[in-house]
């Protein structure tokens, strides 16, 4: 797992949800972080745009999935494309 992917996803969530990055843990769900559903779909969109991947609806289950789950899904899509994680 690339920590860069994690850092970038944390940064996107923090930016959209107006949270301190330090408050985000891999085990957090977006729901735990107080992210409303409309913000959550914007977060998913920003992640897809950032990494140029498309997440399936099951990978973007915002109520139950953790941030770790999102990171894993993005990494899996990046691996499938053969793309190294973006530097930033």
């Amino acid at each position, binding site marked *: 797992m690339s920590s860069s992917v994690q850092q970038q996803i944390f940064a996107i969530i923090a930016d959209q949800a107006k949270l301190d990055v330090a408050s985000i843990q891999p085990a957090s769900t977006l729901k735990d972080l107080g992210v409303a559903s*409309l913000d959550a779909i*914007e977060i*998913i969109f920003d992640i897809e745009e950032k990494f140029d991947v498309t997440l399936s609806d099951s990978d973007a289950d915002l109520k139950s999935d953790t941030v770790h789950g999102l990171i894993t899904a993005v990494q899996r899509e990046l691996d499938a494309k053969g793309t190294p994680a973006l530097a930033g």
Partner: protein
Amino acid sequence: MQRVVISGHGAVSALGIGANTLWSALREGRGGIRPLDHPEAANLRVLIAAQVPHFDPAAHFDDKRRPLLDRFSQFALVAAREAIAESGLDFASNDLGARTAVIIGSAVGGELTRDEQSRRLYADKSPRVHPLSIPRTMINAPASHISMEHGLTGPSFAVASACASSNHAIAQAVQTIRCGLADVAIAGGTEACFSLANLRAGEAMRVLADDTCRPFSHHRRGLVLAEGAAMFVLESFEHARQRGATILAEVAGVGMSSDAGDIVAPSDVGAASCMRRALLDAGLNGEDVDYVNAHGTGTTANDATETRAIRAVFGAHADRLAVSSTKSMHGHALGASGALELVAVIGALREGVVAPTANYTEADPACDLDVVPNTARSMPVRAALSNSFAFGGLNSTVALRRAP
């Protein structure tokens, strides 16, 4: 049946923000038509437009809210805030929000969002569009956002009839109050239509002027596309009287008709029928009317057709009417036009000043009414009509009287 009055108005237009900003310019004969400001301007045949200058969304909406709002919703919200503030209504008290309707007209809806997402799909070949595309684009978005911002839980919806949308929205609001479905209604129209697609569509229809908008002039060359919004607080006269509200004008009646003819060509029969119904609904005789704010787009077809219709309705009194097209100054903001024009009618009724038809050059025998050329006129205005005739042959006229 309840009488309906206007107790607040707000506007965003090519003249800037504010109903009084718009009215001051109109009564001075000062227009907002300027060179088109658009990234593709150099490639377009559209040279001029009446665009809202220096509109900064961040000055009106915080970071969380802006992504939800297409420009047409932003204009609507800013205009509604002004109208509601002027009305002095407190929707939180006595559950007034539950008895307040929101009825907003627009011709093209969230056009800029739609255009931007199309660019992503077709030009950038992006596999995805912005996730808020649907709530931003939907034509009822302004009605929804106004209801949310002010806690208004009465009947709320959008009205679409192209360039007559505003007047149809006002008409619907009047009926809603008259029949007791609401005591108050926020109504008006909004438009933000300067997408590349819409500009190209205007070019293709060959209805856009390349010099300026000169309604009723012999050498008129078409309409000038505009954007903006105007919103009004309508309430039952009884409600306004009981709370001691300052009444701007009375909406005495509304008329609506459909040409059931051509999809774009105007009809004098349909337009005349619309004005007659407004007079009848208002209980006005033609002789009671001093001013008609014309649809007056500046196209060859409309202005001559509307002239014939006004003559058919008013007979000899047509020559005693002041008839002006303020589109010569605020441009043709499609579904917001009727609302912007209502600001001019309210000004005329309150101040006894009729805004002129600007940019007027030579008389056209086919448009032989007193069109108040170029300079505003001080005159008593007891009652007025405001016409809007849409593509699709859908007509609506609002009849207003001075505040009771």
